[in-house]
């Protein structure tokens, strides 16, 4: 790593990477994710910009973002706020419009996706000239912190009858992933992960076609990518769940997952 720091092997490269960060109430996390992005992009020497798309967070995320812009410069931190919460798909469309890079990184701003993997995404993309590279928690050294069953079992007696105990997030995630693999054979091992690198044109054409909301959106993106014969590379990533022990995949999300899965099954 030390030699990489000093030699900047990628400085002459003309590729530019735009990181889209849709935020809503990320006042605490935004400075940290930006700091980490600057650190890892700086070390690897790739050309980049960070586009913060804040959907009118009441907690003052935008104000923090303005401070960050002063610290790191207007060429590195771009602010493209919107007035209110309008959904992920439109946030990407909004971000793409303002992106000057030929590659786009999509990631969560809540620190569950670590920017240390960014150089690996870029190397993977170059290796096969892939149209998109998807982070996977289900292969190689990939994994998740916060879903461990053994630790969960200790808590079991406290919430014995809760759905989350009977089907902890790991089991649900594994089950959902298996079912999707069987029905859709999408050619990627992690469908609902949202740490991905896209060629800008590919992302544009995919976002246009995708109609799902929320959690199913990421799945639709990769299924449609396969349908359109885009090439997909995968990089193992670790995912640090921000809310330890609580899954964001509740009862309602399961219904929307099943609906989304069946829609994709019938239409792709």
């Amino acid at each position, binding site marked *: 790593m030390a030699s990489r720091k000093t030699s900047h092997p990628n400085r002459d490269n003309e590729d530019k990477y735009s990181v889209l960060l849709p935020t809503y109430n990320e*006042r*605490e996390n935004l*400075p*940290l994710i930006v*700091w*980490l992005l600057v650190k890892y992009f700086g070390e690897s020497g790739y050309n980049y910009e960070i586009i913060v798309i804040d959907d009118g967070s009441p907690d003052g995320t935008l104000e*923090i973002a303005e*401070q*960050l812009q*002063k*610290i790191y410069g207007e060429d590195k931190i771009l602010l493209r706020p919107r007035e209110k919460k309008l959904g992920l798909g439109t946030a990407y469309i909004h971000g793409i419009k303002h992106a000057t890079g030929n590659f786009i990184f999509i990631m969560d701003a809540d*620190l569950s996706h*670590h920017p240390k993997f960014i150089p690996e995404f870029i190397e993977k993309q170059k290796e096969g000239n892939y149209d998109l590279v998807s982070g996977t928690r*289900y292969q190689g*050294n*990939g*994994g*998740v*912190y*916060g*879903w*461990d*069953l053994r630790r969960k079992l200790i808590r079991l007696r406290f919430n014995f009858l809760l759905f989350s105990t009977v089907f902890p997030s*790991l*089991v649900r995630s*594994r*089950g959902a992933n*298996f079912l999707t693999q*069987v*029905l*859709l*054979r999408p050619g990627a091992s992690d469908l609902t992960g949202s740490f991905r690198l896209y060629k800008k044109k590919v992302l544009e054409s995919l976002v246009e076609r995708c109609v799902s909301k929320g959690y199913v959106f990421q799945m639709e993106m990769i299924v449609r990518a396969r349908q359109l014969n885009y090439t997909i590379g995968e990089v193992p990533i*670790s*995912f*640090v769940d921000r809310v330890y022990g609580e899954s964001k995949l509740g009862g309602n999300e399961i219904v929307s997952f099943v609906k989304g899965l069946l829609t*994709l*099954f*019938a*239409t*792709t």
Partner: protein
Amino acid sequence: MTKLLEWLFGVSFVLVAWAVVSFDLLDLSLPQTYREVAWPMPLYLLVSFGCYSLATVGYRVATFNDCEEAAKELQEQIKEAKEDLRKKGLKM
């Protein structure tokens, strides 16, 4: 062709093959043992697929990688980042 059509196509192909052997629809005069084996086959396949699914999901749950190191590393970097950002003049 959508995934749904692919599945319908595959399933109906298997069902036709099964019906042909089980009920001897084409008068192939297959030996009785063929019919006896073929007749309960869909149920066997279904049950073994169910077992396979449970085993796969169970195995993957059991061998899932818990990234404790990643969480520790992140916590340390968060501290480092907060300090550095304060020095740079960020007011949280």
